[in-house]
C-alpha cells in the first residue's frame, strides 16, 4: 500500500498536469460557450418561411455538452501519465503490479474529487438557471440530470472509466508502439461488430432497445462501473509482461 501511495505521488510530482490541465481546458471551453450564449438572444431562434424570417420560441434549454471535454482529458491523462513514467518506476524497484495499482488508484481518486466539483458546478448552474443565459454546460439530459449525489457518482465512475481506458492505451503503446495501438483499436471495433452481428443474428434489436430505454441513469452508471472493472483487468494483463 505504501508503494501504491508513492506511485501516486510520483505521478503528482509535477502536479499541474493531472490536477489542473483538465480544469484549465474545461474553463476555456466554458468561457467560449458563455460568451456565445451571452451574445445570442436565448429562448428564440429564427426560421425562414415563405413569409420571410419568423422568430420561434425554443422548446428546450441550451444544452452544450461542453462537460464532455473533461472526460476526454481524463483519457488523455491516463494515457500520457502511465506509459511515460513506467521505465523510471521500474528502475527504482517498483513492481509492475504496484505501479499499475498506484496509477489506477490515483485515477480513481482524481475521478471522485473532480466528479464532486462537477456536481457542485451543476448545482450552481441549476441555481442560476444556466449562468443567467440559460446555458446548460454541466447538465446533460438523462445521464447527468438527476440529484447532485447521482451526478457525483455517475461523473466519478465515468471519469475513472476513461482514465483506466487511457492507461490501457498507454501500456499498449509502451509495449507495441503505434502498431499495437492500431491493432488494439481494430480489435475493439471487431468486438463491437461481433456484438452487432450477434444481436442481429438473434433478431434481438427490440429487446436491446427496451433494455436501454428501461435503464435508469443509476443503472447505466452500474454498467459503466462493470466496464471499468473489465478495462482495469485488461490493462493489468497487458502490463504484467511489459518490459522497458
Amino acid at each position, binding site marked *: 500500500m505504501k*508503494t501504491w501511495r*508513492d506511485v501516486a*505521488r*510520483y505521478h503528482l*510530482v*509535477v502536479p499541474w498536469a493531472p490536477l489542473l490541465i483538465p480544469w484549465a481546458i474545461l474553463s476555456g471551453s466554458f468561457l467560449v460557450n458563455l460568451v456565445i450564449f451571452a451574445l445570442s438572444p436565448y429562448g428564440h431562434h429564427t426560421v425562414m418561411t415563405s413569409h420571410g424570417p419568423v422568430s420561434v420560441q425554443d422548446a428546450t434549454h441550451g444544452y452544450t455538452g461542453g462537460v464532455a471535454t473533461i472526460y476526454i482529458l481524463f483519457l488523455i491523462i491516463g494515457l500520457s501519465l502511465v506509459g*511515460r*513514467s513506467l*521505465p*523510471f518506476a*521500474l*528502475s*527504482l*524497484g*517498483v*513492481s*509492475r*503490479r*504496484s505501479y499499475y495499482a498506484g496509477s489506477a488508484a490515483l485515477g480513481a481518486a482524481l475521478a471522485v474529487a473532480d466528479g464532486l466539483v462537477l456536481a457542485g458546478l451543476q448545482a450552481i448552474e441549476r441555481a442560476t438557471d444556466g449562468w443567467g443565459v440559460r446555458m446548460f454546460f454541466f447538465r446533460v439530459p438523462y445521464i447527468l440530470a438527476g440529484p447532485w449525489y447521482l451526478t457525483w457518482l455517475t461523473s466519478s465512475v465515468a471519469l475513472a472509466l476513461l482514465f483506466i481506458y487511457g492507461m490501457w492505451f498507454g501500456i499498449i503503446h509502451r509495449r507495441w508502439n503505434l502498431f499495437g495501438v492500431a491493432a488494439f483499436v481494430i480489435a475493439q471495433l471487431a468486438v463491437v461488430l461481433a456484438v452487432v452481428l450477434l444481436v442481429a443474428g438473434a433478431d434481438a434489436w427490440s429487446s436491446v432497445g427496451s433494455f436501454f430505454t428501461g435503464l435508469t441513469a443509476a443503472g447505466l452508471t452500474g454498467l459503466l462501473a462493470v466496464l471499468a472493472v473489465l478495462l482495469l483487468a485488461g490493462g493489468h494483463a497487458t502490463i*504484467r*509482461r511489459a*518490459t*522497458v
Partner: protein
Amino acid sequence: MSPVISVAGLTRRYHDNLALDQVSLEVEATSIVGLLGRNGAGKTTLLRILAGQEFPSSGEVLVHGAAPAENEAVLRRLVFVREDQTYPDFKVGHALRVASWFYPRWNAALADDLLADFGLPPGRAVKKLSRGMRSALGIVIGLAARAEVTMFDEPYAGLDAVARQIFYDRLLADYAEHPRTILLSTHLIDEASGLLERVVVIDRGRIVLTADADDLRGVATAVTGPVLAVDEFAAGRAVWDRRRIASRASVVVAGGLDEADRLRAASLHLDLTPLTLQQLVVQAAQPDDRERTSA
C-alpha cells in the same frame, strides 16, 4: 555465504537473436563486479533481467534467493540506472525526490554533494540535460539510493574524464562506508579496473571469463622481439595471439611467468609486458581464429 545474485542456464532469445546463451553466474555480497564486453554482447540484457525489467526465456535467476521479476521483496532492495534511462517530463530535483521515496536508506546529503560535484542544476529539465549530465543524474540516484544491490549500465557514457574520476572516487568512498553489491557494465575497462574486485567478461551472449581482478594481473604476457627468439620462448606455451611485423614478432602467452622465465627472456632480448585488463578482455572476446600474422 550464499551469493546475492545467482544465475543458472539463463537464456534470452529475441526472435532469431540469442542475446544471452546459457549464462551462469554468481555474485557474492559486498563486492564490486565489472561486467565487461563489447557493444551488443548482452550486458544490458543481463542487468535488465536481474532488475526484473526483462524476463528470461529460460533458466533460473535469483537475487537475494528469489526470482526478481515482479517480486517487490527483492526489487525494493535494488536500484538499476541505465545508460538509456528515460524519465518523465520533469526536473532533476523531481527525479531525486521521487527516488528518495522508494529507498529507505536514501541519503539526501550525499545526493546534494554529488549534484554539486557534477555541477548538475536541480532546476534543469531532465530532457534538456546533455548526455553526460544525464549519466551523472543516473549516478547520483544509484549512489544515493544505497540499495543493497546497485547496478549501473555504462554509467559514464558522455561524462568527461574529471567527472568519471569523481564517480570512481565517490563510489569507492561510499562503498567503504556502506558496503553493498555493485554491478557495473562498462567498456572503459582500464579506467575502471582499479575499482573492480571481480571481472565478468561477456561476449555474444556467453560468459567467457569470470575471475578476481587481482588474479588477472599477470595472467598473460605479451612477448616481443626477434621472430626466432620469440618462437623459441613461446614453444610449449599456450599462445593466444601472434603478430608479426617484418623480422619482429609479438605473441601473447598465457599463464604466469616465473623468475627463470624472466631471465631467459632477458637473455633472448625479449620485451615482456603484462596484459592490462582491457587487453585481456579483448583477447577473451575475440573470435576463435586467433592466429593472425601481418607481414
